């Protein structure tokens, strides 16, 4: 079996699993005042400090959430409302066309239900956000903008964006930038302070921690309206009793992922480049999508002209090779990827893609298995498309 879908979720790191089990055995509500509560709180605050240190943030900037989707929604909706409350004229959101649905759908919801005006930021053929368009919109509409949201690295095609450059131009006009860094953390260096972003999303299950635990790094002076009301446990911005083992395990995973980032990146880049070269050798008309240089070390995203990604995926799955088409499903029916469409692909090409994503457990054997199974799968998928 070859698991080539680490961008969807990656196995828990041993440290994270151990930390989870140890913390799960503890009794205590981190908000309680007695000894048990203090014990739980200590675990949470140590985790917070550890996360802050690993991501170049201050502990007070770390807000624990129920995962990446929640962090993205909190940032996008919370910052839109928060800024709009202070300055009612700011109702415009700038959003890249290649965001994950957790951001994209939140922005579209604001447009439909909250009267937001959206400026969609286009990307070039390699999936790089067009800085000239960003600058143009900022110049034209600077005083109407509530926030800019642009992902650090794309989950489908792996293109890495110049986030600090973007936040610098936003900052000139006092406009906050949120970045979804879910795919970036552990793969490329990420520092909240150096990025200049006002808010940054991370999730546990993409870096060797548990699913259902995430973080929103949020600048101290960024106004945010909470989405969930209750006990105000996290800086009055996020309510709900904290998942202590989840938070502790998240911090343990992040610690390892960040400490080993450089070595992991080097190893995965070699493995990934080998994978791409061998796929192209096996299927000469395969096309590599995304930025050839500034891309996530573990990401190989390819189009197979004349095939449906779905069909190859099924055949590879039957051969024990697990990968993704990378695009979202609607009722189980694969949709053409909005990311590929934004990059200028037509619908047919946008349906012909597969994403192979590597992670901490990936080996040369995984690539070998893929290369052994791929040619037959592509040939059959091509025949099926012709029926």
């Amino acid at each position: 079996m070859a698991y080539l879908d680490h961008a969807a979720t990656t196995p828990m790191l041993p440290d994270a699993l151990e930390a989870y089990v140890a913390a799960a055995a503890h009794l205590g509500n981190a908000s309680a005042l007695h000894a048990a509560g203090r014990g739980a709180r200590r675990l949470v605050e140590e985790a917070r400090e550890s996360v802050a240190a690993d991501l170049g943030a201050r502990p007070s900037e770390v807000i624990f959430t129920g995962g990446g989707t929640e962090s993205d929604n909190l940032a996008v909706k919370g910052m839109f409302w928060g800024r709009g409350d202070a300055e009612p004229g700011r109702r415009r959101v700038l959003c890249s066309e290649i965001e994950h649905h957790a951001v994209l759908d939140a922005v579209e919801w604001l447009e439909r239900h909250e009267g937001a005006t959206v400026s969609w930021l286009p990307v070039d053929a390699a999936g790089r956000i067009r800085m000239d368009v960003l600058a143009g919109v900022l110049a034209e509409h600077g005083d109407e903008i509530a926030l800019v949201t642009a992902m650090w690295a794309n989950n489908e095609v792996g293109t890495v964006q110049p986030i600090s450059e973007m936040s610098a131009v936003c900052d000139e006009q006092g406009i906050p930038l949120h970045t979804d860094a879910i795919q970036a953390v552990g793969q490329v260096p990420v520092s909240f302070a150096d990025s200049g972003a006002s808010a940054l999303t991370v999730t546990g299950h993409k870096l060797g921690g548990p699913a259902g635990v995430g973080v929103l790094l949020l600048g101290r002076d960024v106004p945010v309206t909470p989405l969930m009301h209750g006990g105000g446990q996290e800086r009055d911005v996020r309510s709900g009793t904290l998942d202590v083992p989840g938070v502790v395990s998240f911090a343990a995973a992040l610690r390892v992922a960040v400490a080993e980032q450089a070595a992991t990146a080097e190893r995965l880049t070699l493995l990934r480049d080998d994978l791409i070269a061998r796929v192209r050798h096996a299927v000469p008309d395969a096309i590599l999508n995304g930025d050839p240089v500034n891309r996530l070390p573990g990401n190989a995203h390819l189009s197979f002209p004349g095939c449906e990604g779905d069909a190859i995926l099924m055949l590879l799955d039957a051969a024990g090779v697990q990968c993704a088409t990378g695009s979202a499903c609607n009722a189980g029916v694969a949709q053409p990827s909005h990311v590929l469409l934004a990059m200028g692909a037509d619908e047919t090409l946008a349906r012909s893609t597969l994403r192979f994503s590597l992670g901490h457990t990936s080996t040369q054997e995984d690539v070998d298995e893929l290369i052994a199974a791929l040619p037959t799968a592509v040939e059959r998928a091509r025949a099926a498309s012709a029926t």
Partner: protein
Amino acid sequence: MKVLAAMSGGVDSAVAAARAAEAGHDVTGVHLALSRNPQTYRTGARGCCTLEDSRDARRAADVIGIPFYVWDMAERFHEDVVDDFVAEYAAGRTPNPCLRCNEKIKFAAVLDRAVALGFDAVVTGHHARIDAGVLRRSVDMGKDQSYVLAVLNSEQLSRAIFPLGDITKEQVRAEAAERGLAVADKPDSHDICFIADGDTRGFLTERIGAKPGDIVDGESGEVLGEHNGAFAYTVGQRHGLGLTRPASDGKPRYVLSITPVSNTVTVGPREALEVTIVRGKRPIWTDGVARTEPIECEVQLRAHGEVHAATLVADGDEVTAHLRAPARGVSAGQAMVAYLPDGGGDVVLASATITGAERG
């Protein structure tokens, strides 16, 4: 064999997939997404293409322990089944969409794709049997679906597996429960899966448009009422005619024929429905061998309809059935299916599309 099990989300296809897996086949489950917009089709447990059905199918596949995928067949289904359904009614005929779906989707588009992808056969939960390449009725005569499968040719049949033909529906449900399949108690789907509320006339009117016309007595030529579209009527229909005047003989009237050109629905007494000669075209011989000599057989003229002893005469693309006793309510567009009675399950010999019928 490497087989593809079409899983609708119902109990039959779930048990069929489980039986195929147990028989040692390498089974992959596939749910066919047939609606362009999954929410627009029937909600609840009656249909076959809702999100809930897709989830039920996936859940069953997980319990059986087979891979599961959704195939998007919406475009093909619309062109070949839904549009054809509307066009047939508009032309004054009465189509059978389940039969068309088997002919054009399940054992054509899906089968072709499956074969290209390396599968040997398609498994479905139809109640019918294939032994030694011969299509036969199910042991459960009440649930038998051989009529809607009779359009398959020998090549299609050679790549079809129907694991349920030798058990009854009741046994299917019991077996589903034994296997821990949650769909064991799911109500049967019936009617037409793409007409969400079961209102066929409304569905057709929406697509063809209301076209008021006369309802005419076949014998006297008297106008007995008005209709909103001749397409909404079926030969043999008695109810819902909305006649404004009684017929001169005071007896109930039945739809005898539909004439789209003049937009008239012709009605008459029950006896006038009786026919002994049924004509059809485009015969499909399930064993691939066209018959030239007259054949003594039984013909069935609609789904779940009664059978009639007949002599079948085929001449190239045309088939005529001479019935021993009259049949009533024979509609153009339906299939005429010929069976050879057999103690081990009637054998399906051929099917043809009915073009007309008359009194001999």
